[in-house]
Every structure is written in C-alpha cells, then in structure tokens.
C-alpha cells in the first residue's frame, strides 16, 4: 500500500508544489490589497450617493475582515484555485498511462485495479486537504502580519466546507481523465464542459444575490454551496446542496470504478 501511495505522490508532486505556490500568490495578493480596497470603498461611499444601492455589501466589506476573507478567498479566488488544482491532481491514472505506454507495468503489479484507483484518489484527497490547510495557515499568518483580527473558527469551518463539498470535483476530474482521450484534450474538455458553467453560474448568481433576486439556476451554483454563507452555523450550512454533492461524488466514484474494471488496456 505504501508503495502505491508513493507512486501516486511521485506522479502528482510537481502539481502539488505548484498549487502551493499559486495559493501563496492568491492569498498574499488579496491580503495585501485589503487596506487599499477598504480606503477605496470608504471613498466611494462618501463621494457617490448611489454607491450603497449598487454595492450594498460595501459597509460589510469595510467593517468586517472576516467577510472580506470569505468573499475574496472562499467565495471566489481561493475556491476557484482549489477546484482547478483538485481536478488537476485527480488527472492521471491507468487511462493516461495507457497513452504513455506504461499501463502494462502498472497492471503487472499484484493488486486489483480498484485498489490501485483508490490509493491514487487517497493521495489526491490528502493533497487537496493539504492545499486548503496550507492556504488558510498562510492567510492566518499574513493576516496577523497586517494586524487584522479574524475568527479562526470561521476560517476553519469554511475550509472544511470547501474541501468536504469539493471532493465532488476530485471524483469528476478522475472520471474525466479516464473518459476523455488524447494529450491535453482531457484538460480542455473538462474545463469546457464543467469549468465554464461553474464559473458562469457562480458569477451570475453572485450578481443576482446582490440584486436580491433568486432564480432556478441557483440550485446549480456549486460554488455557493462550497462557500456557504459568510457566517457559518449549523442552521446556515447548505445541507441540501452538500447531500446532493456527496451523492453525485459517490455516483461518479462508482462510475470510475466500473469503467476502470471494464476497460481493456
């Protein structure tokens, strides 16, 4: 088992270290922008009388650093980055090895395909958790460095929600990598079929929430399920969305296992 985990780690470690670098850049950028943005928002509120109508979230952004972190990291950029890398970590496996001609060596190992797949997914899950933990650790340290107080409990809860629901994207990435053929084609097809709707629905629904309107499309806003409301409690957790994503994750994993068992290498 240890050797399988080591193999999966060796195959994905470049992606993992790149993700840490990307998370550092994203978190550092938004933390350093805080003071400048708050000054800008204060200025806008005093000079533009209509600002509060168009940007009702501004007073919250000025007064609450917790809201700022939630909005920029968990509801937008960190979440998008995490989803992108979770999908990229999940890419690989026997279907990709088949393209490189190394699949027979992996299949020659005295273990079942199912065990092989699950050990790889375990490494992907650990890497995804490590990426999220690293990002909030870095955010906490950088926030302390700029003398901002924040709720560590909120930060941890949002991270747990993001990872717990985001496992759907790991399962999706894994299935796409096995189903879509061709060099690099799997990446672009996955981004095309799932990444574009994910981003478009996220942006559209954020806009609708600012306007105070809701429509049927909000049920497909996976990004909002992953982010949750900015103040998380047992009552505000998106239970229905979580249940839906976990069911979908289970179905995708079953489909991956069945496909992996049947495919001829």
């Amino acid at each position, binding site marked *: 088992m240890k050797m399988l985990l080591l193999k999966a780690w060796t195959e994905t470690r*470049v*992606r993992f270290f*790149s993700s840490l670098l990307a998370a550092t850049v994203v978190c550092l950028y938004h933390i350093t922008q805080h003071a400048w943005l708050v000054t800008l928002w204060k200025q806008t509120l005093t000079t533009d009388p209509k600002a509060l109508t*168009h940007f009702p979230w501004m007073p919250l952004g000025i007064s609450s650093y917790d809201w700022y972190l939630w909005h920029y990291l968990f509801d937008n950029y960190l979440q998008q980055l995490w989803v992108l890398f979770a999908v990229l970590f999940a890419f690989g496996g026997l279907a990709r090895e088949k393209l490189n001609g190394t699949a027979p060596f992996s299949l020659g190992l005295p273990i079942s395909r199912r065990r092989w797949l699950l050990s790889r997914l375990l490494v992907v899950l650990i890497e995804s958790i490590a990426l999220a933990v690293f990002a909030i650790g870095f955010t906490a340290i950088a926030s302390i460095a700029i003398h901002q107080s924040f709720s560590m409990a909120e930060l941890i809860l949002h991270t747990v929600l993001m990872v717990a629901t985001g496992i759907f994207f790991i399962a999706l990435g894994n299935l796409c990598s096995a189903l879509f053929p061709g*060099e*690099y084609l799997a990446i*672009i097809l996955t981004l*095309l079929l799932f990444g574009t709707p994910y981003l478009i629905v996220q942006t559209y629904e954020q806009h609708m929430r600012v306007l105070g309107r809701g429509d049927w499309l909000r049920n497909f806003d996976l990004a909002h399920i992953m982010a949750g409301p900015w103040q998380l409690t047992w009552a505000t957790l998106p239970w229905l969305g979580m249940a839906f994503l976990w069911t979908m994750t289970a179905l995708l994993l079953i489909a991956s296992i069945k496909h992996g068992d049947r495919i001829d290498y």
Partner: protein
Amino acid sequence: METALTTNASQPAPLRHALLWKAWRESRARFFSALALVILVVSYAIFISSDWLDRYNSFHPTEPLPYSAFIWSGLFNWLLQAAWILGAFVLGLGGLRREGATGSALFTLALPVSRTSLLYARGATAIAESMLLALTPALLIPLLSRLTGHTYPFSQAFFFSLCMGLAGMVFLTVSLLLSSLFEGEFTAPVAGILIVGSVFLGSKQWQLHKWSILDLMSAAGAIDPSTQYLRGPLPLLGLSLCTLASLSMLFVSIAILRRRDF
C-alpha cells in the same frame, strides 16, 4: 542491402506540408475544443445581453450602459479574453519534449528535417489556429448581435480581435517554451496556470497596471470611455514589444530543443 535516406533537400515544399499536416493532426482536437469554448462564451454573452442591460440600466437610469460597452467590457476585456488565452495556451502544448516522454520522439526525429523545422511547423500551426480563434468573434459578434436586435460594427470587432490575437501571442509562445522545458503531460499546463494567474493578479495591482498585457490585448488605452469603441490609434508600440517577446521565446524554445539529447 541498400538503405535509401530520404534527405533530398530539393523537395522542401512537400516536407513542409507534411510537417504542417502532422502539427495540425496533433492539435486539431484541441483547436476545435477551444473554438467551441470561444463560440460558447460569445453566444452566452450576447444572448443574455438584452436582459442584463435592461436590469443594469434600470439601476442606473441616468447613466445607461450602451451595448457596445457591454460587448467590450464583458467579452474583449473579460470572458472572451480569458477563453482565448486558455485556448491559445493549450494549442502551444506538446512537441518533441512531450513525445520524448511518450516514446514517439525517435520516430519524429528520424524524419529528414531539422528540429528547427519541426518547431517552426508546430509554431506556425499554433499561430494560425490561435489567430483563427481570435478572429472568429470578429465575425460572430456582429452576426449574433443582429439576431438579438443590436448592432456591433464588424470593423470594431475585427480590430479588437486582432489586438487580442497579436498581443496575446505571448501566451502561445510561453506555452511553446514551457513545452520545450517540461516533458510531463501536466507540468507545462500547471506552470502555465501559474504564469497566467500571476499576470492576471499583477495586472490588477495599480503599480503594474500600466504594463498590463491584458489591457493591451483589449486595447483598453485606445477606447472611447463612454461607448468603449476603438477611437485612438492601435497601441503599435505595445504590440511590437509583444511580437518581439513572442519571437524571443520562440527562438529560446528552438535553442533548447536543438541542444537537448533525446
């Protein structure tokens, strides 16, 4: 036994065609996927435009947003730009280094052509594909706008698309360079994500904003602030610098490939 080496230099054209054909075959699935992405993005933006503008203008009755401003800020300066960068980057991936990892490099190297010719053919194909990708919206935006009851001049769409394609060539050559450096299927894309992400965040920093390649791609410095139509001259200096940077990266890629032992 005699072995015939097909190194006849008097037939360069068929060889060149064969290399271009090879590059096209290898990248066409990616090209059509990227094209689908661009068409999807443009169609989505145009078909929601009426509803979106009505809603926006009801909130800002004194400063209504013109359709042309919606097209520039929503497509050329945002969604379309992002989709094109992604498409162009993916088109530049692949090549000898990757073939080295999959075991097919020796077959390619056995062809009676230099490594430089191989990279030129791949580069030319990727440039042609990415320019086609950039110019598709020039045709699509005026046509779809007409279908939704709006008008958008072809000349405006064409020049914005041209600017996007020429300045954005840097992202394509970054991709070619990364493909010459890394052999893993996911290493070059991940390195590319880091670079493109850094460029995006860097361009949002006010200190670096005037150097933003994304603004150059959307010709942000040459537009009318109210209509967001192209009014001033095209940013020729910026476009020339981008072309120079692209050529430099192409030559560095060639130098790397020529020295590498497969």
